[in-house]
């Protein structure tokens, strides 16, 4: 499904970033980093109008020729970014949402781990597994 999944801390440094074709890793880093612009824009826009009750899912941040970048932000301003291949048209908005929800749940589990130091990069195997699950499906599709 996804070609790149990233978790970004409140302070905008990456907590976790993994992409499928390793040779393009750098490109994904740039893409995800740049997407923070839009995330911030959306957060501030929502913050002004709706107050505290806001949707966590930010929707499509921006499309590029090859990828679609989706965003999601938790209440603690941790951002999730999922990059999907543009050619993968079978993916609907709902599926992206559910991917984010799964990611968020797994992230919450990581945070609940008493041995995890908030702010550290995510090393959890369980989280890795969830992410892999979202990426592996891509392989079966294409």
């Amino acid at each position, binding site marked *: 499904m996804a070609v790149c999944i990233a978790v970004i*801390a409140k*302070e*905008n*440094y*990456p*907590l976790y970033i993994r992409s499928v074709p390793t040779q393009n*890793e*750098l490109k994904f*880093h*740039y893409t995800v*980093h*740049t997407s*923070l*612009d*839009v995330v*911030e*824009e959306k957060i501030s826009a929502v913050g002004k109008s709706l107050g505290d009750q806001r949707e966590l899912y930010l929707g499509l941040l*921006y*499309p*590029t*020729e090859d990828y679609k970048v989706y965003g999601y932000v938790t209440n603690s301003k941790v951002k999730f970014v999922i990059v999907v291949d*543009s*050619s993968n*048209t079978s993916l609907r908005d709902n599926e992206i949402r559910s991917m984010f929800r799964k990611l968020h749940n797994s992230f919450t589990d990581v945070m609940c781990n008493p041995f995890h130091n908030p*702010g*550290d*990069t995510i090393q959890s195997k369980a989280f890795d597994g969830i992410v892999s699950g979202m990426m592996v499906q891509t392989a079966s599709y294409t």
Partner: protein
Amino acid sequence: MATFADFSPPLSSRLAVTPVVTAHIELRQSPISYLLLRGAGDQGLFTSLYTSLAQQLPREPMEWRRTYGRAPKMIHLEANFVQFKEELLPKEGNKALLTFPFLHIYWTDCCDTEVYKGTVKEDMMRWQNSLRAHGSADWVIIVVETNDTKKKNKTNILPRSSIVDKIRSDFCNKQNDRCVVLSDPLKDSSRSQESWNSLLLKLRTLLLMSFTKNLGRFEDDMRTLREKRTQPGWSFCEYFMVQEELAFVFEMLQQFEDALVQYDELDALFTQYVLNFGAGDTANWLGSFCAPVCSWNGLLLRRPIDMEKRDGIQRGEASLLDLRSYLFSRQCTLLIFLLRPWEVTQRALELLHNCVQELRLLEVSVLEGALDCWVFLSCLEVLHRIEGCCDQAQLAANCSHTVGLWAYATDKLKSLGELCGLVSEKRPTSEDLNRTVDLLAGLGDERPETVNSLQSPYKKLKEALSSVEAFERHYLELSHAAMEMYRAIGRLRSARLVGKSLAEFYMKKGDPERAETFLQEALKSYVSEGWSLPVTHTRKQIAECQKLLGRTEDYLQTSALLAGDVNLTTEERKHFCQEILTFADKSEDQSHKVTLSMGVFSQLTRLQFRPATASVHSGAVLQVELTLRCLMPVAVHIQQLAASIHFDLERGGTNGRSKGNQRQTNPGTVEFHQGNSSAGPPSSSAAGPPLELDEIQDRSPSDNSLNSTGVVCKNTHLVMRLHDNISLPDTPNCVSPPAVTIQEGAQMLKVQDVTLEPGNNSILFTAPSGQPGTYTLRQLYATVGQVQFVLPHIYPSVQYEVYSQEPQLTVEPLSEPLLAGLPQMVKFTLLTGHYAVKKGDALQLSNTDTMPILPSTSCTARISNPTAELVGESALFIQSSEKVTSISLPATPPYHTVEFLLEVLCIIPSGSDRPANESPAGVCPQMSIDCPWSIYSTLLALTFYIPFKTKHSLLSAGNRKYIQVCVQNMSDVNFTLAEVKLAEKQHASLELQSLNTKTQQLLCSKHSVFCLWEVRWKDDLPSCLQCVFSANFSPLKQDVSAFKPFHYQFQLERVTTLYSVRAEISPPAGEQHCRSGFLCGLEVCITRLTEPAEGEMAEDSKTDTDVADSSSNWAVCGKSSGMVLMPMVADATHKVQIEVMPLFAGHLPFPKIKVLKYLPHTAAVAIQPDPDSCVENDSLSLLDKALDDQGDTASIRSRGSVHSVGSGDQQQKGVAMPRLEPFSPGQVFNHSHTQQVLVLPATDDHILEVNAT
């Protein structure tokens, strides 16, 4: 099709808000056909009516109710009137909605029945038949009546209604509304107006009815057609035309939203087909869209309808790009009508991305770069179109919508430039030129709309591809525009990414200087947000720049960073490390030294002191172990590793120990937290330094109890300034480290020739410890050839202390407390400090009488080193002379401890020497010690506690006298008391006979021993006795030799018994015994026993008697006290009678009788007091208090009544008061002391009192 061209409104009016304004233009073509009566000369009539009809029809809006639950809308109907022709009637299966005749009107002004019957009726019949033949039921017959026609046919006039009635009966069976009368249409009368209005209403209603019906039918047909799409032979292009027809109609009705929906549906349908194709489900008709793309001239948005493309679609010859372009141009037009220009930009970007994807999916062969051209042109076309309909302010405010297109265009232009060899220092090759020509060929000719415009996308692209210079100009223009916009809307990261791309362009153009600024800016942002991979990548680019620019220092700094960057491969890291080492080795020029930040090369992770206290005495060895984590991929040889030291002369005096590093949890070890390296985890740099917390406890200075406790953050300044701090250590590329000069004279920790392996290295320094003071480690340098790595600040600050200590002698008791009178051990502790004790050095103790030092043979001194390990033992040599005891010390090195014990004895001072009230306290004999290292004597004060407390008392029995001495043991030691003696010093005739039976007595801790002697005398008992009590004591279970003497002196005065007092209680008269509640007589008899002694004053003989009952057994009635003047002769007797009443029955103790000395005030001497007069009431009550403190209120009250009687005859009020003074113990002997008398209960004994106490 020329008709469609007329549709196009002038550009300016497209965005007109009121649809009514555009209505005239749009609905001129409205498909309503009308009929005229033929051959009746009525052409003129209709022509005269046409204008007002065409004008008035759209004036009023109609509510349009729609099928499928769509919301009703108000629309203005306009009509186009066309002469009826049979050919115009739609045939079966007609798809054209635009030319569809919605309503047929038959006009007639016939009013002559004959004419009607003759021609009109027939004509109508034919018209009706042809309509019916084509299945059209939408018709209306309008009968125009004028007065002229009426007048003309005056003769055979029928009633007016009859013609209309006839028509109605002939044609409109049950549809009376299909025939309308228009009266005097050309006259300006109310009747005419009314008939106009009803006609218009009728026409509108019928028109709308027909329109709804036919549109519904059309839509149904269209849906049916769509459902057939799975059937073979179905063509998307055909269907496209049908649905577009509907869109046109909606557009004409100004229902742009509905029109847009039609296009969107077509768009979605097409997209779905492409996707299905991708999934393997191929539709035949899709084949035409898979043809190789041979034209890429971009979108065309300047025409409302691009007929050229539309024809292509209609003919099924359109390429995918053509279809998409046409579709988008229509959507764009409608969106602009809908005032949603920003949706255009958003959709445009989606479209462009989508097209690229679709071509890829359909595997359409496209010339390399052709799509880039198409995208570039399209982006610019959309932007131009938007610019055309918005003003500058609007554009500026909506940058966020357009910037994506700008960036996309920039991107595409760049890749085109690269493709055509325009991005390099060289000219394009012939191959590049060929490619350029091919690309330009696909653009075709410029479209007529833009031929005259100077800035058309077409011209831009052509120009950009024409030469290197032009390309650069255009590319820079676009890049800067995109960057500016990104900046303006706060998308700084995107702006920097564009900047980076620009930097790459500059690098290819061989202009590293410009490239570097962009790269640095981007790097700063990546570093500050902790994105390590982009940091590494950007840094690598920067390194390339710096190398080209020849900025050695910066290059080396960046190389060092990269050499330690774990994101790079080992080979790359080695390469950058080698760059540094090569430079370090090569340069011979000593002046050209390069200083780099230590952080990029290695990290100081830990520092350890040995010994751990980090505090040594001067001259001692202190080692410092540094742990350096070398970040280089290979081992690096370092010529010198040095740490500069700041030396602070200590101000705190000699004792350096107290300031030791108590704060550190792990003493002697300092951990350094440095997360700020590029290679380290980025989180730590963003999260800032960890909190350093300390516990603080506030203790009360007096009793060391805890007042408060808390936690304090030691590095608040770092934590709080987090954001300023992050970028500092990590941007050595931007800010070169401050130039550091090494002061040669300064003290340093130095190690020569170390090899740092990758990873942790441990380096041992020996710290200078010459001068006492505080040494702070400031900076760390590593020198590798010409390169020097400098750590400008070692934080947290690390310091060690070197102290110099004065020799110190302390003397303390071996066990607390020291007891006087017994030999006690005292411990001498000598800290030698900086002084080395030589052989022959001795301590000189001045002797005191009260505390002799007991010579002992086996006295050894223990010598231990600073870490409290025993170094040696040696015997002490103690020499005592009369005044001085000299202890010769063993030779001891500095900073060692000498300990030895000495036995001393403090002699208990005898009683007269010490103040009487100082009973349990100790004595502090003072001793001075002369030490060899000091010219001053040390005064020594030890407190010895006296183990005993003694009391004496005189006891009498009539004339006989006894002396009792009580010895109380105050210490915790048990003693044996022996040879208890009492002696009188002055009177030899006096004999003290001991009544003590035991020679030795055990005196336990905190217990007392009483000793008693009877005093015997021959002639006269002296009034004053000087006694000395003496005893020997030793701690329990020690031999006789251990006995030490103890003395106690005391003096007894007025020993002789002066008076004897005898009291008797007599029962009331006639009774055998006293009864409670009955008055009894108390007779007190005072007898003088001795002759008056010499000097005894007459006044002395005045006594006062007081009867008091302390246990509230008695009530004293009448006077309870009185003055007695005793004669000054022996055996003189005085009796006092007092009435008392027993309050209880039983054996009651006698009331207390006190005899007191009466001392008249000196001023009152002249007045002879009446012997029987009572003393002052006040003094009596004072007496009460003194004697009877515990007396209950009842007895006080009872005595109060006595007083009141006695106070009746009081005199001399206001005169200074006489005093009463008790006799010395032994001067008065009371015979009836503790005597009891039997009291019987009162006869009436039904009152019982039970006392339970």
